[in-house]
């Protein structure tokens, strides 16, 4: 019989995120190379991991075609030079791809089927725009299973503004501005860089090295944001400034059972407590993290007040704000996205889940007074995903002293 195991997040890394498209830094870099470099960087940081002990490699991607297709987890393992005995597979849950890699393999560890795994994701939106070549079943529309706007993420964000009039454009813009400012501050304090794996990038003008995210705009102002176009509706509220952009990037994380982590001398940065995914109306997909978080809290036997740190994916500012309003959290609560989020850093769809975890793990180390944190994100076609983590550095006394 397999035995129930504790699941720990040992380490996580990512490539710098690039802007998608011809002018982006990864235009000449393959998606599979991005995730392979992330995996190599992860393994180099964790030399105690015997490669032949890795039981699974799961790599998520939304648009699984071309250099992003072909059973990515397996091909990435082979390309990274892992022993041929190491298996792998591909995962797709759109934006929550990497998160699903982590929960799926984490479940395997919990069940006792795996000892050590690599879970990650990649999205090269420059080469593979979301939904490219997709062939949605005509029944979706003929039977009104989803509204026509459900497949356009910007339109679903506008629908959140419709539903919650208290969520104004001004609040969204202000939230977005703070995200840019927090990212700039985190960079200045060297909070982001330690988990970035540099990537050599080919251009027409020679080789370069990507060492920083390409998307942040630290020069952002409220005035600037106010004047941006609203591409999804005339006189709408959702702009490029208060949304995440189109990006390229890859992430990889190392999970292990508590016992094997101890055996190999690996440090647990986080302990998995519970996770949940939940569905909502596809036309308003951005509120997905609300029910998924409620579900995950319930399974963990916790309440929202037990959560000391939040890493929420900022697909759209309004979508994060709807979550905060629901749980009665201030727009500028310091527990939320301390280093900023996807509005500034970028959101290469299926890779983002692990980025949230990297940042939460670093914050755990800096906040021993916090016992629990959560990572959550909305997912296209109306879903949300939440993982609740426990801080191994938690110190009761530290909490009291705060």
């Amino acid at each position, binding site marked *: 019989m397999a035995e129930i195991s504790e699941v720990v997040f040992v380490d996580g890394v990512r490539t710098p995120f690039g802007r998608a498209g011809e002018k982006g830094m990864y235009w000449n870099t393959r998606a599979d190379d991005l995730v*392979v470099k992330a995996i190599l960087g992860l393994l180099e940081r964790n030399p105690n991991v015997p490669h032949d002990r890795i039981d699974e490699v799961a790599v998520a991607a939304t648009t699984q075609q071309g250099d992003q297709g072909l059973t990515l987890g397996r091909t990435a393992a082979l390309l990274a030079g892992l022993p041929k005995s190491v298996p792998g597979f591909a995962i797709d849950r759109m934006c929550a791809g990497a998160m699903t890699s982590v929960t799926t393999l984490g479940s395997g560890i919990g069940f006792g089927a795996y000892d050590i795994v690599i879970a990650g994701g990649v999205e090269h939106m420059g080469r593979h725009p979301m939904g490219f070549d997709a062939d949605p079943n005509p029944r979706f529309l003929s039977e009104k299973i989803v509204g026509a706007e459900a497949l356009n993420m910007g339109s679903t964000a506008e629908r959140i503004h419709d539903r919650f009039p208290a969520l104004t454009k001004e609040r969204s813009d202000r939230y977005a501005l703070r995200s840019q400012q927090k990212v700039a501050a985190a960079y200045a304090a060297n909070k982001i860089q330690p988990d970035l794996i*540099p990537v050599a990038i080919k251009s027409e003008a020679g080789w370069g090295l990507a060492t920083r995210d390409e998307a942040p705009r630290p020069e952002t102002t409220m005035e600037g944001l106010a004047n941006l176009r609203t591409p999804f509706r005339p006189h709408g509220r959702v702009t490029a400034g208060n949304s995440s952009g189109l990006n390229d990037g890859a992430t990889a994380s190392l999970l292990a059972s508590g016992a094997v982590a101890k055996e190999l001398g690996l440090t647990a940065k986080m302990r998995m407590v519970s996770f949940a995914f939940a569905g909502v109306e596809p036309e308003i997909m951005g509120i997905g993290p609300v029910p998924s978080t409620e579900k995950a809290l319930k399974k963990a036997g916790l309440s929202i007040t037990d959560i000391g740190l939040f890493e929420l994916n900022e697909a759209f500012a309004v979508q994060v704000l709807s979550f905060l309003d629901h749980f009665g959290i201030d727009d500028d609560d310091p527990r939320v996205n301390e280093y900023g989020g996807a509005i500034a850093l970028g959101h290469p769809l299926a890779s983002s889940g692990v980025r949230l975890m990297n940042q939460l793990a670093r914050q755990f180390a800096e906040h021993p007074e916090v016992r629990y944190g959560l990572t959550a994100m909305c997912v296209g076609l109306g879903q949300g995903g939440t993982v609740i983590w426990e801080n191994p550095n938690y110190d009761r006394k530290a909490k009291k002293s705060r």
Partner: protein
Amino acid sequence: MTNYADIDFTDLLEFSADEVVTHSYVRDIPLASGKTLALLTLDNGRDHTRPSTLGPVTLLEYGTALDALAARAAAGEIHAVAVTGKPFILAAGADLSKVGGVSSRDLAKKMAQLGHYQLSKLGTVGVPSFTFINGLALGGGVEIGLNGDYRTVDSGIAAAALPEVFLGIIPGWGGAYLLPNLIGIENALKVVVENPLKNNRTLKGQDVFDLGMADAIFGSANFLEDSLNWADGVLTGRITVKRANEPGKVERLVKWDAAIGIARKMLEGRIGTVARSPYVALDLLKAAKSGTAEEGFEREDEALADLVAGDQFRASIYAFNLVQKRAKRPAGAPDKALAKKVTKVGVIGAGLMASQFALLFVRRLRVPVIITDLDQARVDKGLDYIRGEIATLLSNGRISPDESNRLNALISGTTDKADFADADWVIEAVFEELGVKQDVFADIEQYISDTAVLATNTSSLSVEAISSKLAHPERVVGFHFFNPVAVMPLVEVVNTPLTDEATLSTAMVTAAALRKNAVITRDTPGFVVNRILAKLLGEAMHAVDTGTPFEVVNTALDPFGLPMSSFELLELVGLKVGAHVLDTHHAAFPDRFFESENLHRLAEHGKIFERDGKGKIKGFDKTAVKIVSGGTTPMTGDELLRRVEDGLADEIHRMLDDDVVHAAEDIDLCMILGAGWPFQMGGVTPYLDRVGASERVFGDTFHHPRIAGVA
């Protein structure tokens, strides 16, 4: 000392105005330590099928980029400089189309000087310099790195080499001086002289590292990132570079000259002294023991100018292009689409030659191969040989156990010709006699389909005559291998007047699948290689028969620089076979080819040379000398040399008039690939042109202009 900055290179740059320029792109790389490395990428803007090369315009741009970096280094803006290449390629060396076309020694020398001038700037840029050998690095590509401080290499590079000596020149952009001073004289001899002469052997990434040509080696997946991180470590002192092979005092005092001496002796024994470049390379490597780099570079300038302007380099480039290009697109080959599919091969005969065919076909085509012979014992012997060879491949690790099982399952033997029924390619290797071969084909034709190809390995019989008793002679083609079958790269594909296009195409496609270079010849006696060798050997035996001593004959053709002397060649192919070849050619062309009774008697006796226990030649066998004695009109070596040169010019001229092959280039290709004739001769016709034989015999030259050096 030469002050390269004072030289006017204008004429060289004008000469190279149409060069495919490899550009030097520079981008600043922020290193983890906070330092800045300026990374220079060499990229000609083409894909990997057109490797970046280094012509004069490229060199100038590269040097100008390094000048700018030196200024930035002086200003403290950058802390290191590194050079790397486009994906899969660092640089494939000098642009040979340019070097091969220089019109004077002066221009050749400037080519050497410009290379030294620009490449050496990497070492004097003012901050530590690195070369990240990310892919193919040949000649000047390797020398780019040698001129800098540190090197890393990708473990997956296609090849690295200093192949200059293979082409009749020397590493002349610093390689001959810098390499031995980096990796020691013995290693340098291996890279500069030994490998080029071993059929241009190249180095893999691991070899480059092991020899000490690179200070670090990284896998391909993260090569550039790892190299940059390593460079950062060197800059910050985190990494200390150790060079175990760097020559010390003792090596210079004791080993250096001795190693050169040993190499020289080995070379003289192996290839003779005709080819110039290996010996020039030895001289340069020897002189690299002491003195400054500037002095070394000056020596290289002179040596390179001499060789580039000389005959042998031109002939070598010509030969190189034949082997690289013409061999891959054979003249007169029909459309590949006409080729019939070969899904099963039948081999008639189970002797040594036939068994070698069977092994080659099964390994390369991976289709069922069936062999047959007169009785089961012979078939079994052939099968034993083939399975033994497969077992050897397995034990050497050349093939996997799965592959071994696959090959063994594909090989079978039979004495029932009906088992050939579904073969679509049948090749015979039976006794070299017309009647036997005719009967063998006529017999097998009863069993096989009307369209199955019948290939004969005859070396001297008429292929048309062999097919004359068949109902379907249009499916017969000559397919003449050279011994040893697995090694020699040539197949002469003999096209008879009856052979149809589909059959010819099948033969060409099959040859390519066997990884052989095929040349199409007409069905004339000896085809190409044997006819030319028969001419040469016939003249040699004739000289002996008429009283010229063995010693004189054996050295008379030394100026050719052939891989072996006439009598060594005769012993290698077998004296009986040799006598038979001379007889056949004499029968076909009695007025031009000699037969030799003496050779038959020597064959009876069994040897010409006296050899020691290890097979090394000690002299001529006394009985052999006695056998051939009695001639009364001896020739001098010079007379014989002239006779052979003129005889070859005449015979090759006739072969071209008779359209045995379409062009002199095909003759040369055959001699290079089928007989190992040297690049410095250009095969044979460039040599005959340059020694005046063509003019003497037919009042013209084979090539217009002649393939020869410039003043």
